[in-house]
């Protein structure tokens, strides 16, 4: 017996989902269905994918109907995360659509005898030398796409594209501006009942006694999982509030001291991974040691997590704003003891989530209530306190750098050490389901400890820990905590935010110590021309410092190539530091290769930068020994309109280079540029996020 020849590699997610009809469908009425497995999370990906498809098929953009992903029929594209959607889904669709075009044209050529190179595609119609000879619509029902994508396909060159690469308005925005039902929260099904969960009073609390169900409500209790359901949302809400006041929990201290987090991160049992161990190129004449701390951060979505679930005839159907519907399906099936085929998860849009928030957890909450109410669709929505108190956070992190330089100040050695929990707790990745309520049940599943995604996918705590600079030697140690007192998972950029802050603030300090210009210093240590280009571009954008800067004025620059493989991004931040630090202006230059939707990409970069200002200046999850105390907007503050800086963005034109995502590239450089600007203004090196007055005085006191 001989093994079958391995199939040729296809681009992106097409490699694992090779059937063309799974991605593309034509309708006799002249519509095109495009069915990606990636999902809209407010980043505009659905619009960018539609552009790619329309361009490669040669149909008008308006003919494309983007279908929401569902485990029932969509290609399994894993997780919508890590700025990988254009690469994985976009390049799959580009290839699939080019293949579809080629197949339809070949059939038309054979049928009519018109040579292939004499057929032009005009908005889906096939035009030969003497007029129309066919169309996608005419052959819509002929099953031409019921085949695997061929490996060899002619893809358009950059110059041949007319839709991808241009600014197109977001497909989803009109519904959101006119208030039309589009979000998961707006889904209503006949016979729907409304549910709320009553989470334990604090982390690790055990249920002692639950009161009777309030009138008109039913309780679902399974171990420490408590939920209440009613015919109306108002009744369920009121019942949840009443129950929360009366229910008795056995609480205990399970969380570390918030003020001792540095020591906690250093001392906790951890798995150590050495990613680099190259000796220095010379003995340093001077060594700089720096340490950076960032607290736990919340996704802090504006919408609360919500799901709809219906359980009937041993089948579960769920509507969810999860970023990973296939992985969610796996964990739901495991918790409910169902075969995976008995669970279907449909994606519906939620509020922006920036990573793994509670979207998956609430789907299990809804499913548990649905199982207790067979046949009825159950809509379960979290409260704001659930959202800010129980969604997975981004791990607190400690990064330490030891940089050795020679007499000129040039690097000879670099040691980078990270102490952090893992940054991946998404469902479906562990021996045991990772959904919140799975560990609360009477027969609990063991709660997994967050891992780091492999370096090949960009890593987690180690993301962007590899300096892009010529450092001489390089030692890189990652300590992944084996305890997880506070549940954490993926937030925009994962470990990149703190690693980039650490590297870029250290580079700035090294330049200053050597009496060198920070831009020259970086350029001297860079080999990558694209990196140099974005730095030079942002310096040109920002222009000279003002002749008479106001009091407290500071400017700082930072740069990173996201994940070491993705978009290049350089930022100049201009701040004013008085009682508090205010960011006034940001200039951003980025290189993301081919850009599908220039305005959309700029918007993603700007949004990431504004959010990074919020992370840098305002945000910290707070807790006592028992529970999260920052569970309202009063206690978890984010940046508001009056504090948002002006943002100027430039994307370098690289139409012939492979496209990469841009959603996360600005986060680290923005935080680091602000830190460097603070030093410029105040002379203090910020080491502790967020850069509040209190933390800055702490860092000033700790300065050597």
């Amino acid at each position, binding site marked *: 017996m001989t093994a079958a020849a391995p199939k040729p590699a296809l681009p992106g997610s097409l490699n694992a989902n090779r059937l063309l009809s799974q991605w593309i469908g034509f309708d006799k009425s002249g519509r095109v269905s495009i069915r990606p497995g990636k999902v809209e999370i407010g980043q505009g990906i659905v619009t960018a994918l539609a552009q790619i498809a329309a361009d490669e098929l040669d149909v008008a953009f308006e003919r494309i109907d983007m279908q929401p992903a569902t485990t029932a029929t969509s290609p399994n594209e894993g997780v919508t995360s890590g700025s990988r959607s254009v690469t994985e889904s976009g390049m799959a669709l580009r290839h699939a659509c080019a293949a579809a075009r080629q197949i339809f044209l070949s059939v038309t050529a054979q049928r009519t005898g018109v040579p292939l190179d004499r057929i032009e595609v005009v908005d889906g119609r096939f035009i030969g030398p003497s007029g129309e000879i066919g169309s996608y619509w005419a052959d819509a029902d002929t099953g031409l796409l019921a085949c695997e994508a061929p490996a060899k396909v002619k893809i358009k060159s950059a110059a041949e594209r007319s839709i991808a690469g241009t600014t197109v308005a977001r497909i989803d925005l009109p519904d959101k*501006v006119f208030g039309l039902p589009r979000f998961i*929260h707006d889904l209503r099904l006949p016979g729907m009942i409304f549910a709320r969960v009553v989470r334990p009073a604090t982390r690790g609390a055990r249920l002692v006694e639950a009161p009777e169900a309030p009138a008109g409500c039913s309780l679902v209790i399974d171990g420490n999982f408590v939920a209440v359901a009613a015919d109306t949302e108002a009744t369920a*809400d009121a019942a949840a509030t009443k129950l929360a006041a009366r229910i008795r929990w056995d609480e205990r201290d399970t969380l570390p001291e918030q003020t001792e987090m540095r020591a906690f991160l250093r001392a906790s049992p951890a798995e150590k991974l050495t990613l680099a161990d190259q000796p220095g190129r010379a003995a340093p004449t001077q060594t700089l040691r720096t340490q950076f701390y960032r607290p736990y951060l919340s996704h802090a979505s504006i919408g609360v997590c919500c799901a709809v679930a219906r359980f009937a005839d041993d089948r579960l159907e769920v509507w969810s704003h999860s970023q990973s519907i296939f992985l969610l399906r796996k964990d739901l099936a495991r918790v409910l003891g169902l075969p995976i085929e008995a669970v279907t998860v449909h994606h519906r849009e939620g509020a922006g989530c920036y990573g793994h928030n509670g979207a998956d957890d609430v789907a299990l909450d809804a499913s548990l209530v649905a199982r207790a109410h067979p046949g009825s669709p159950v809509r379960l929505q979290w409260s704001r306190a659930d959202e800010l108190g129980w969604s997975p956070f981004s791990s607190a992190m400690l990064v330490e750098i030891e940089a050795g330089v020679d007499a000129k100040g040039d690097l000879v050695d670099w040691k980078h050490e990270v102490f952090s929990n893992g940054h991946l707790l998404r469902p479906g990745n562990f021996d045991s389901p990772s959904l919140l309520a799975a560990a609360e049940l009477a027969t609990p599943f063991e709660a997994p400890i967050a891992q780091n995604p492999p370096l090949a996918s960009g890593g987690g705590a180690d993301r962007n820990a590899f300096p892009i600079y010529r450092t001489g030697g390089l030692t890189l140690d990652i300590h992944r905590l084996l305890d997880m007192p506070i549940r954490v998972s993926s937030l925009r950029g994962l470990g990149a935010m703190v690693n980039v802050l650490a590297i870029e603030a250290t580079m700035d300090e090294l330049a200053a110590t050597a009496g060198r210009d920070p831009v020259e210093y970086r350029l001297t240590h860079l080999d990558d021309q694209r990196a140099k280009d974005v730095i030079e571009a942002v310096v040109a954008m920002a222009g000279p410092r003002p002749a008479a800067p106001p009091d407290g004025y500071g400017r700082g620059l930072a740069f990173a190539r996201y994940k070491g493989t993705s978009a290049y991004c350089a930022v100049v931040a201009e701040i004013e530091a008085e009682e508090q630090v205010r960011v006034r202006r940001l200039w951003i230059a980025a290189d993301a290769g081919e850009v599908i939707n220039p305005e959309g990409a700029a*918007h993603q970069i700007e949004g990431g930068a504004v959010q990074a200002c919020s992370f840098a200046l305002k945000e910290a999850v707070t807790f006592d020994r028992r529970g999260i105390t920052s569970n309202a907007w009063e206690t978890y503050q984010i940046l*508001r*309109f009056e504090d948002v800086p002006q943002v100027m963005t430039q994307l370098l034109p690289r139409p012939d280079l492979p496209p990469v995502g841009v959603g996360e590239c600005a986060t680290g450089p923005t935080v680091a540029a602000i830190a460097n600007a603070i030093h410029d203004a105040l002379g203090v090196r910020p080491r502790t996020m967020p850069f509040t007055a209190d933390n800055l005085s702490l860092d000033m006191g700790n300065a050597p």
Partner: protein
Amino acid sequence: MTAFYLNGTTVSVDLPADTPLLTAIRNELALFGSRFGCGAEQCGSCMMLIDGQAEFSCTRPLDSVAGRDVITVEGLGTPEHPHPLQQAFLAEQAGQCGYCLSGMLISAAALLSANPQPDEAEVRTALNRNLCRCGAHNRIVRAVLRAADQLRDTP
């Protein structure tokens, strides 16, 4: 039974008097444009115009609007007859996830009624109660200024 004007027509709702206005409008009247964000008047997703003022609706009891004039984002305009603010938000692509936009539009509408020619700082102050997490703030500000310009040019 509570009767009030909703987007220009009279409605009456048979719900307990203390039902939050937001819940009544979303669930009983099936207008989903106003969003639940916090239930504590801290984010602005639920804002409606009540007698012309931008007000939170998530904690506000239903009976407090008896006989009053309530406008939700659906009452500002429709795809066929958009409000200048809605046109401007689309022109500026002022939104990412879009969850906050109804509240933004309502706050902006109240601002433009009171101050038809706001400067940028006034727009930021007027929207400061409304939270956006995606970082679409500057585009939203530009959209409000664009709508103000349009209203001035087409009296």
